[in-house]
């Protein structure tokens, strides 16, 4: 957990112009990813931290210094906060060379030794030899590297990245991920990365904060957020397709299981005592927890739940195939799993074929039922 004195902490609340209700913290050397769909306010939050936007209420501190406090009226300017910011479209000064861009990030661009420092920074981002080029003479990836060097030239207290990779092509992006991963080992400041790409967040971040409509819904290590979403909304936002309604029947501490009623059958899931027996719950299961079984195979371990169903319309995505399966049961429920193409072929999957699926109870995660805007969920159909 973040040391209360170091690192960045922010509480931001606002109603207009964009509703915000966020709590963030990021320790020194830690990478926090803000993830959410477009319009979720993540860029606005970043700009609040940068000082480019003043929220209505809240408090932002970094390394013990108060950057913003609505209560006391404190509001340090962007320059005084000393942040390094990397923008989605690079925002380089188009009329200055790469080196001059980097120099502007420094306190004393015209000072002795600054040029050498600037060259060193450009070398660190693999741009030596290109110092004198103007932005329009550089590729997208190279421009982004200049932007990073410029941000680092500032010796910032916090490094902020606003969807820095979304404007570059895939292969360049892969390269930049690697470089950022390499670079961050040396970075001792909090790093906040805004992205709409969950995979990117999973790859680069130590912690992930899921945002929707300006509200931070859940923060935690990426895999935890993805496999143990706190609510149905988070489950949806992290891309879980298998989200259903059920009812807790009983807990068995000795076996480490909880029994959940769903779709007319009983599922054995990982013990989660937070939900009392008899309570309605929502549950989620990642696609990796749904395994194909040919019809006549034997059942597996304690937490494996076997269901039968009919294959629906399959969608081939690259070298994986998304297989929706209509589960036979009390009501219609659609489970989704993805399998590598070769597996789909060797199992001879086709629409209309019946098969068995193994649901790994250890990956079934319980959440409060979704009584949100789409109305009280009263059925066991997928609500993802």
């Amino acid at each position, binding site marked *: 957990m973040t040391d209360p004195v170091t690192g960045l902490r922010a509480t931001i609340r606002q109603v207009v112009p964009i509703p915000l209700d966020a709590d963030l913290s990021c320790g020194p050397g830690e990478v926090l990813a803000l993830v959410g769909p477009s319009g979720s306010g993540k860029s606005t939050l970043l700009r609040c931290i940068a000082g480019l936007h003043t929220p209505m209420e809240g408090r932002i501190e970094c390394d013990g210094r108060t950057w913003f406090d609505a209560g006391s009226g404190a509001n340090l300017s962007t320059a005084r906060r000393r*942040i390094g*910011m990397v*923008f989605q*479209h690079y925002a380089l*000064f188009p009329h200055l060379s790469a080196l001059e861009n980097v120099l502007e990030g420094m306190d004393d661009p015209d000072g002795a030794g600054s040029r050498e420092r600037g060259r060193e920074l450009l070398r660190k981002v693999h741009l030596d030899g290109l110092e004198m080029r103007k932005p329009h003479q550089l590729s997208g990836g190279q421009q982004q590297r200049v932007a990073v060097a410029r*941000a680092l030239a500032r010796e910032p207290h916090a490094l902020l990245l606003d969807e820095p990779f979304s404007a570059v092509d895939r292969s360049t992006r892969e390269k930049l991920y690697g470089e950022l991963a390499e670079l961050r080992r040396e970075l001792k400041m909090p790093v906040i990365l805004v992205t709409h790409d969950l995979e990117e967040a999973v790859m680069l971040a130590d912690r992930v904060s899921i945002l929707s409509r300006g509200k931070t819904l859940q923060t935690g290590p990426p895999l935890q957020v993805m496999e143990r979403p706190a609510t149905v909304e988070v489950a949806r936002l992290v891309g879980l397709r298998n989200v259903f309604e059920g009812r807790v029947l009983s807990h068995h501490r000795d076996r480490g299981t909880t029994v959940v009623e769903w779709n007319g059958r009983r599922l054995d899931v990982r013990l989660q005592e937070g939900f009392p027996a008899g309570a309605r719950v929502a549950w989620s299961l990642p696609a990796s927890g749904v395994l194909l079984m040919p019809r006549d195979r034997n059942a597996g371990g304690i937490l494996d739940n076997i269901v039968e169903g009919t294959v629906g319309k399959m969608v081939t995505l690259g070298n994986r195939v998304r297989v929706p399966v209509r589960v036979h049961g009390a009501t219609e429920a659609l489970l989704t799993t993805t399998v590598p193409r070769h597996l789909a072929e060797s199992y001879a999957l086709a629409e209309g074929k019946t098969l068995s699926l193994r649901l790994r109870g250890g990956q079934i995660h319980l959440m409060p039922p979704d009584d949100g805007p789409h109305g009280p969920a009263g059925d066991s159909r997928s609500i993802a």
Partner: protein
Amino acid sequence: MDWTALSLSLQLASATMLVLLPIGVWAGRKLAWSRFRGKALVEALLALPLVLPPTVLGFYLLVAMGGATPLGRWYESLFGHQLTFSFQGLLVASLIFNLPFAVQPMQRAFEAIAPEVREAALCCGMSRLRLLRRVELPLAWPGVLSAMVLVFAHTLGEFGVVLMVGGGIPGKTRTIAIAIYDRVQAFDTAGAGIMSATLLLISMLAIGLSYLVTAPGGFRRHD
């Protein structure tokens, strides 16, 4: 060729241009970057001289600063001569009349700078002055130049306001445009012709320079 009148016109045009340069940069920049209540009203007021008949402006200026008005009397007490019928009066009228020509092109030029670039400058810790000097002006200078050229050319051609506010006093307020008018009335077509041709040439040079600088590919663009 009435050299006095030409000189007067050039002085008026230069003075207007030099005074409106900082005003235009300040206003253009503010309008480009700030959002405030009543901004639309301010922009409309600034654009007013574009559509206002010059005689209307001349009339209101006479009403506001003529010899019998409080403003006129205050000015006379300070400087010993009247504001109307003087070069300074022409300058005041010219400044008002040229505001949109100064502000609008500059505003467009500043607006054309991506907001992200300015924000990046702030993130780099640049002071406002350095931001102006190092980023905004170097990127917006074609618009600034274009505005200045327009102001210069437009002032050279001013007639109605200058006549009403200045009275066409030789040596003081008889600009070349008025001198041409006088020459025509005096049956001196040769004189009128020479001066008209001179003004035409200057105007063409001004417009040509302005387009050359702002046309895409004219000078090196920094997009």
